């Protein structure tokens, strides 16, 4: 049988180093988020969760998932609608976003002005053995966001583009979406409590004054 072109490239692990011309994920996410003290954050699981913990610390205003893969963007939408005066960031990996790509359409037609989505795209399912994801094979999440009617969409591949993209996420009057392409390095996992109910209470106490 001839090799099927639809098969992914075989990957056996992460890259040891960030290659020239690629962004390092921790640095990229930290730069895009900027000052995290005045924003609310919902993250997807695995690498995206660790990027935010590295950038912001284990803080009450960041709700980090370790399951329910695909939920982060819709959860951020519910929060953004509930808190229109706060800027809400969703930080999610491309694997998670692919699981529920329709949410981009749900968000796009509502276009909440205070919702900002960062898709950290390393083109791998890093948590499960570094298998190549669809984005390493031509799928473009920024085009999906544009196709979902999200008005402010940008792809970031270079250091020089991070600052402007961060400003767009912070200031745009309409939902914004940044696809940041990062090197598939194995940034170490960061420990925090995985008690989702405890995190919920901490988040609500900090934001609302009581749980």
């Amino acid at each position, binding site marked *: 049988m001839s090799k099927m072109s639809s098969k992914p490239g075989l990957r056996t692990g992460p890259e040891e180093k960030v290659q020239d011309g690629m962004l390092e994920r921790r640095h990229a996410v930290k730069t895009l988020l900027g000052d995290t003290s005045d924003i609310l954050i919902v993250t997807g699981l695995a690498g995206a969760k660790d990027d935010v913990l590295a950038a912001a610390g284990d803080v009450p205003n960041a709700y980090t998932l370790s399951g329910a893969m695909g*939920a982060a963007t819709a959860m*951020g*939408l*519910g*929060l953004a609608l509930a808190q229109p005066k706060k800027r809400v960031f969703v930080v999610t990996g491309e694997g998670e976003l692919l699981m529920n790509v329709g949410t981009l359409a749900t968000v796009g037609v509502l276009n909440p002005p205070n919702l900002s989505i960062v898709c950290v795209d390393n083109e791998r399912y890093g948590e499960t053995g570094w298998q190549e994801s669809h984005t390493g094979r031509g799928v473009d999440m920024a085009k999906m966001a544009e196709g979902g009617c999200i008005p402010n969409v940008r792809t970031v591949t270079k250091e020089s583009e991070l600052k402007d993209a961060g400003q767009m996420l912070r200031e745009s009057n309409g939902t914004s979406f940044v696809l940041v392409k990062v090197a598939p390095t194995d940034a170490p996992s960061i420990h925090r409590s995985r008690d989702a109910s405890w995190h*919920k209470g901490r988040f609500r106490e900090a934001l609302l004054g009581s749980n």
Partner: protein
Amino acid sequence: MADAPAWQDQLYDLLRQENITQFSYVPDAGHRILINRSIADPDVHSVSVTTEEEGVALQAGAHLGGARSVLLMQSSGVGNCVNFFSLIQHGRFPFLTFVSMRGDFGEGNPWQFAMGQATQPVLEASGITCVRVDSPEDVIPTAKAACTMAYQSEQAVAVLLTQKLLGAKAFSTGGA
């Protein structure tokens, strides 16, 4: 389409009295009045989701932000939600859904039975308390009880609006 029974408007009024400000749904004939009232109501967010599980995550996010949200879905949509129910159960988020049943009393489309008959077991296996409504006079008292369970006691509750209540959708032998 026939006039909607009075309980549908009364149910919307009740949900608004309960301060629900986010209505999410995949369009469904059984919830037509609730959906249309939420679209017409300038004081609520009417969130047309592409799949029902988004409405589960939306409720968790709403609760983080101090708002109340409700998911309106057909029984087939329950099957789309299952993994996201882990967020509700593990996070002990309040959760309220109204489920218009298919695949039960008088169903004429055999495709509806598998998920319709699995709906309540799947919800209960996911930690969600189910209350069934078979008659119009029970809708409002049951909905009030469900709101108290969800928003005061922070439980996960599904109100199943059965085909005895809604009436089975009419199918000709060539339909759907």
